[in-house]
């Protein structure tokens, strides 16, 4: 799967063993307050992860175009100086709307640093 230019700006790479997990390296480009990730960069990682998960789910049904409706992000822990992972899960793929959840974590997937819920409008290819 090819990632959009914005994913490159964040430095995102796909996990070779799990095609819906993304990794974002720590660095100045994603820094917020000194020593911590910017909340917007964490959100960006989760938004790209959600779209990757949705594209995979849609590909199995003939594909389609995706438009974001909204996102709600909860920030749980500060993001420190180490790689951050993001993964999206499609909770429901309807005809016109998809509900997706995404999380971001550093050391332990069970201890997320942030979680997000997104709704997307889908225009199916037919």
């Amino acid at each position, binding site marked *: 799967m090819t990632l959009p230019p*914005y994913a490159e700006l964040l430095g995102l790479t796909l996990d070779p063993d799990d095609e819906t997990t993304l990794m974002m390296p720590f660095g*100045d480009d*994603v820094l917020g307050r000194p020593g911590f990730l910017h909340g*917007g960069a964490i959100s960006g990682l989760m938004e790209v992860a959600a779209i990757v998960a949705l594209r995979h789910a849609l590909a199995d049904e003939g594909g389609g175009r995706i438009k974001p409706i909204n996102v709600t992000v909860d920030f749980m822990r500060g993001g420190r100086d180490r790689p951050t992972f993001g993964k999206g899960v499609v909770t429901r793929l309807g005809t016109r709307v998809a509900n997706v959840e995404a999380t971001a974590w550093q050391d332990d997937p069970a201890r997320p640093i942030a979680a997000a819920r997104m709704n997307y409008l889908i225009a199916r290819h037919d």
Partner: protein
Amino acid sequence: MSTLPIFPELAELLRDGVSGHGQRLGLLYRAQGPDWVELALPYNPEQIGDPESGVIASGPILSMMDMATSLSVWLKLGSFCSHATLDLRVDYLRPATPGKTIIGRGECYRITRSIAFVRGQAHDGDPDDPLAHVAGTFMALEGYK
């Protein structure tokens, strides 16, 4: 303008511009009021989320609104206070127009002992035709004031 609070962190932002992720996105300071801040996000093809249309991703807009609303809390407070975003919701009302600078206005409308409530809108030229609406909260671990 001189009656508005200028504290070291805001003076630094006005003088040097934003750093870190904000700098990478090209965020610029635009204007401020007693409880609001406006930032600008110039169009940059590196931020495209949909290569087919050239529309930028939603992430940079969220980043700008996170920062504008965070600054608005300090303006309402009249001083800098270490805090973190607790949650942020963004409604994407319409796609941003490719090529246009996006303006984001964040406003703090309530501060309690430990929570600040914020809201904001983003547009790309006409404030009456917004492209995003946000609502969120910040939390100060040591408390506000």
